[in-house]
């Protein structure tokens, strides 16, 4: 079988596999401490943005749960929010500066730092590995794999006849970089900054929440939603329902 026809030089173990692992690991450690040094304290949103969030939330609560209140109380609140001087009306009509994360220097700084500590080592070591070890087969997994895995396991080697269970040096680097969570947890404790997989998750959009990009738009949507909400007393039939129990 072709699987057994290839023999790896034992030197590869000492000069490719081990160095890649060690260097990825050490970079992770450096990243962890660099992040701690560079990270600003947990930035609290400005008072204004907290206020906006809470106003919008309150309006949403009124829409959802307002029918538990007496009619008068509901109307007072509605007027307070969307009346002429209401909080939502004012918010809707003021041309708020559209918040662009790129324009907020503190935010950009944070993002840049994150990007830098995330991407730089990836590029540097990735470049180094592909420069020094391109074309190496570094290891073999002890079980057969389907052809699909070739892209994953044999990056940098374009041999269609090669069995998929061989791992190229480049792929070995990726496996090492993303699979070190357990090791870092042991060394640095939980919730560390070294894990690549976590860093990737953080870059996914949508996870942030709590920040509104365009306040005016949000105000307007909420204003309209509240405007068309009609009061209906939810407790009208509560007596009958109670008597049935």
């Amino acid at each position, binding site marked *: 079988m072709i699987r057994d026809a290839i023999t790896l030089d034992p030197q590869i173990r000492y000069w490719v596999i081990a160095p890649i692992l060690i260097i990825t690991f050490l970079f992770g450690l450096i990243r962890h401490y660099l992040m701690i040094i560079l990270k600003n304290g947990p930035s*609290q949103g*400005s*008072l204004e943005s*907290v*206020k906006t969030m*809470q*106003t919008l*939330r*309150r309006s949403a*609560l*009124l829409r959802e*749960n*307002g029918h*538990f*209140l*007496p009619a008068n*109380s509901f109307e007072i609140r509605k007027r307070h929010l969307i009346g002429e001087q209401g909080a939502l009306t004012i918010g809707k009509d003021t041309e708020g500066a559209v918040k662009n994360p790129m324009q907020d220097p503190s935010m950009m700084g944070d993002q840049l730092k994150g990007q830098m500590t995330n991407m730089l080592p990836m590029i540097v070591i990735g470049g180094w590995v592909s420069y020094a070890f391109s074309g190496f087969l570094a290891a073999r997994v002890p079980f057969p794999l389907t052809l699909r895995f070739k892209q994953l396991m044999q990056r940098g080697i374009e041999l269609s006849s090669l069995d998929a269970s061989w791992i190229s040096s480049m792929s070995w680097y990726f496996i090492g970089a993303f699979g070190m969570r357990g090791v870092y947890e042991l060394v640095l*404790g939980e919730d560390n900054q070294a894990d690549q997989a976590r860093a990737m998750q953080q870059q996914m959009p949508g996870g942030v929440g709590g920040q509104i990009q365009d306040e005016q738009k949000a105000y307007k949507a909420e204003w309209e939603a509240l405007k068309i909400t009609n009061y209906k007393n939810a*407790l009208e039939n*509560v*007596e009958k*329902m*109670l*008597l049935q*129990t």
Partner: protein
Amino acid sequence: MEGINSSTDAAEMSFGELRKTLRKFRENGTRNATVTYKLGKYMCDNYSSKLGNEVWDVYEQMFFACIDLGINDIGLSYLRQIKEQFPESKRVYRLIGVLHEADGELAEAEELYKEMLEENPGDAAMTKRLISMYKTNGKTVEAVKLLVSYLETYKCDNEAWLELAELYLSEYEYEKAAYCFEELILISPANYLYHQRYAEVRYTIGGAENYLISKMHFCQAARLSGNSSNRALLGLVTVCETLRGLKGVTTEDKESCFKLVKWAKEKLTDKYEKSKVEVSDACPKKNSPKMTDHIDSGLETVCAILDSVKL
């Protein structure tokens, strides 16, 4: 908490158990000072190096335990260690304020809080500290003022609304308290306690319209609690009785009130009878005088109220 009481011996617990218990206390906000102090002290004496960064949380916990126990000087020693580690932290300044309060140096504490708030007006924890300080000192007006300005920003903080409601109630400002309870109902409409208290406030304000609202919310409270809230049931009886004796209430309403009173009365009597049986069953001596007497007197009170209600 799982058999942990003041007689628990810290020396018998392993490091992992100790850490877990203290963490649980911190997360749940349990301020069981005696136990916390005992466990925490053992922890700090034996495992402080093993804790890593968590040691500062434990120190803070110990600080509060010391304050609660009235041993302020020991609390101060923990505070010093925290302060050395985090000289600029606002959380530490809050602890210093708490220590001032505990020592009775209220003016200093107030000044410190105000200074910190000027620097960072959005600091919710600091504001709450200052409010609770005003409240303990009986400065209700200041407390209300600050609380209102706090709620201007943090509009959905139910804790704060509840606090404001209590403050208004203590000043007999029932209309305003009612507003606060309405706000609480908006935030969590499934909590029967808010409905119950709102109904009570409306009942206290009085007037046919308020009685009707009160009745509705007592009903809702009874329903949400699964008829387990005696307070709601009794409130229902009271408010319906008042409504029946009132002019300007439609006959239809009066009829439904009649039904409700009958229903609630049945439930209440039933419950008290049942609890009487249960207690006398649970007592080892069949005629243990204390417990049954207690129940009897409770039942008598309720019966007296219910009997005064003419059906």
